[in-house]
């Protein structure tokens, strides 16, 4: 059990982070806090992906020290490099997360201009009073 906990600590911690994010999204009433939770949730997924690409042992970052214009092409042993594919995917995911945050913040400013508050319960109260 301890073995399982220790050898895969990345995965355990990604789950913890994800749950922190989920908790903030569902339980917090302040909308900015929800947004922060969303951000944490997305980074947790990215952490998970980065953990996939990790190798132990004699490995290095996936950057070739020579380019093709140096003339000689050496055979590349993939076992010496980390798997770069999950990293490349996560570049896009980071961009998506910042884009979502931007849209959400713009929406938050709209909400604030209308209700003058960012607490969900107060907004619902205002809505109810307007409805009756």
């Amino acid at each position, binding site marked *: 059990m301890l073995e399982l906990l220790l050898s895969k*600590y*990345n995965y355990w*911690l990604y789950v*913890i*982070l994800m749950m*922190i*994010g989920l*908790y*903030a999204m569902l339980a*917090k*009433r*302040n909308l*900015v*806090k929800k947004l*922060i*939770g969303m*951000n*944490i949730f997305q*980074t947790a997924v*990215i*952490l998970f992906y*980065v*953990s996939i*690409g*990790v190798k*132990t042992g004699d*490995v*290095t*970052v*996936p*950057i070739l020290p020579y380019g093709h214009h140096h003339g000689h092409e050496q055979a590349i042993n993939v076992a010496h490099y*980390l798997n*770069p594919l*999950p*990293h*490349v995917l*996560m*570049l896009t995911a*980071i*961009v998506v*997360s*910042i884009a979502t*945050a*931007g849209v959400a*913040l713009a929406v*938050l*400013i709209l909400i*604030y201009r209308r209700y003058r*508050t*960012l*607490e969900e319960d107060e907004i619902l109260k205002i809505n109810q009073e307007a409805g009756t």
Partner: protein
Amino acid sequence: MIWQLDLFLLLFVIICALAAINVRDLLSAAIILGAYSFFMCMLWAEMGAVDVAFTEATVSAGVGTVLFVAAVFKTVRRSKD
């Protein structure tokens, strides 16, 4: 990958995450979120994902924090929870 450093950074990441969602001042929350992103980026650099770390440092820790701070300045700083 050095697992001691890894664990240390992960601990910081989690502390920052908890602080960001629990602090009542939203400006502090935004800044702590920036710190969270930065620790995350160090963690990834340490795990070998330099490209991801670089992007996270510029995008989330840099521009993302500016976005959050700007939005907090435009709205309200206090939060009830």
